[in-house]
């Protein structure tokens, strides 16, 4: 095995100038090969994008076909969006500021409920906003 390869594997060994020169030539060659390969790939990608735009400009009917295909692909997404919209509507409304929560009324008009709450607050000598009513139910006698 050549001295070059032995030195190339051992970082603790000292290098001769010839070995260093050989490694340097290989090293710079690799840098150039990799970056030129990247240059070609970048140029290719750029040409593909430029070419597709040019083709669409030259053949608008192709553009329409692509658009209709995209629309078909997006159909399921639209359905998903509609479902999302429905679910948003179903979610409970945000509670008003300062409220303790919702009051359930069973066989009771809102007007009557408001009166009952006012009477209870007055009889307890407590401000209405410090009381919490969970439900008001009409009891049939």
């Amino acid at each position, binding site marked *: 095995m050549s001295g070059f390869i032995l030195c190339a594997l051992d970082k603790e060994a*000292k290098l001769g100038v010839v070995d260093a020169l050989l*490694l*340097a030539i290989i*090293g710079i060659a690799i840098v150039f090969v*990799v970056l030129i390969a990247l240059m070609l790939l970048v140029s290719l990608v750029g040409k593909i*994008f430029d070419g597709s735009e040019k083709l669409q400009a030259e053949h608008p009917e192709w553009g329409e076909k692509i658009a209709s295909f995209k629309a078909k692909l997006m159909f399921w997404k639209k359905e998903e969006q509609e479902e999302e919209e429905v679910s948003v509507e179903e979610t409970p409304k945000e509670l008003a500021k300062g409220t303790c929560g919702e009051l359930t009324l069973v066989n009771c008009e809102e007007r009557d409920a408001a009166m009952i709450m006012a009477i209870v607050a007055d009889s307890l000598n407590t401000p209405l906003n410090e009381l919490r009513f969970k439900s008001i139910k009409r009891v049939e006698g």
Partner: protein
Amino acid sequence: MNIGEILKNLWNDSGYNLFGVGDGWKSLLMIIIALFFLYLGIKKKFEPLLLVGIAFGMLLTNLPGGEMYHPEMWTGADAVKGVNYLDVLQHGGLLDILYIGVKTGVYPCLIFMGVGAMTDFGPMLSRPSSLILGAAAQGGIYLVFILAAATGAFTGGEAASISIIAGADGPTAIFLTKTLAPQLLAPIAVAAYSYMALIPLLQPPFMKMLTTKKERMAVMTATRTVSKKEKIIFPILVTIVVSLLLPSVAPLLGCLMFGNLLKECGVTERLSDTAQNALMNIVTLFLGISVGATAVGATFLTTKTLLIIVLGLAGFVLATICGLLIGKLLYVISKGKINPLIGSAGVSAVPMAARVSNTVGLQYNKSNYLLMHAMGPNVAGVIGSAVAAGFLLAVFGA
């Protein structure tokens, strides 16, 4: 209680006394050097974000009795077989624990993630020939590698680590050196960052010497607009192509490209912002202070350090010359459409080298703005130096 004895013990344990014991004078000298670097960073604004941290780490590690950093844990005879991280965590000082991020290569990779998130590869994508200029400037790395080997003072791994200074890329230099020559980490990091800061002074004389007035005045026209899709594809493409060829550089290049993808994909703005700012700043803090900590007087004050400083300077000059010469070649091939001044920007050091190309160009033609054109070779140089480091790691890292 004997007050005299207490005071004597206090004096014996103090750092002031330890300056006079053994290699204590070297610590004193290192503190003076650290103060000089602090002056350069704060007053002269030489890469202050890193140099201030490095200088302060240097100051802390050389305070006798502080026990903040223990070189024997990292480069001692026992560490040759592998660092005992449990021992570092149990018995190491503050700087030992912070240094784990350097030793494991975590900090340079995270820094590269931030660099990627801040880099716009658009100018390079719009003019792919920039990549050739980025490759050309790496010639400086290999020329210094030959020079370092020719001195006979360095092993293969050390020569490789010194040569990467010419890449003008701090994180890459640290990433390579921590594997191939950890004992030289401090002088190499200090040289790399100091010369990067000196680029506005180092490059212009050679740019003027190697180009004619006509070449310097060449006006470059605007290139094509790069689409968003191309910018998204590019980091993925580079990661796959380069990492498959040189797996040793995958962590570094992968992080650079990941950061860039975060920036370009448009759906991870918060992550991109974190990589560019918060994360980058935190890692810069830890990196600077822990790299500075490796500059212990006994290992830093050697003739090797002086040689590294000289070779590093030669590297920057040679990289600039290589970039300029290929720039001149492209000027001829393109029939004057490429200004050779942008060739010097291939030495990485983003965006300072590109700014220098722009400044020199403006001196000869007031309406010739080369900045965006020079950014192409500049960012290509980052990829080029990472590839060069990958090759050296593949050769010596086994």
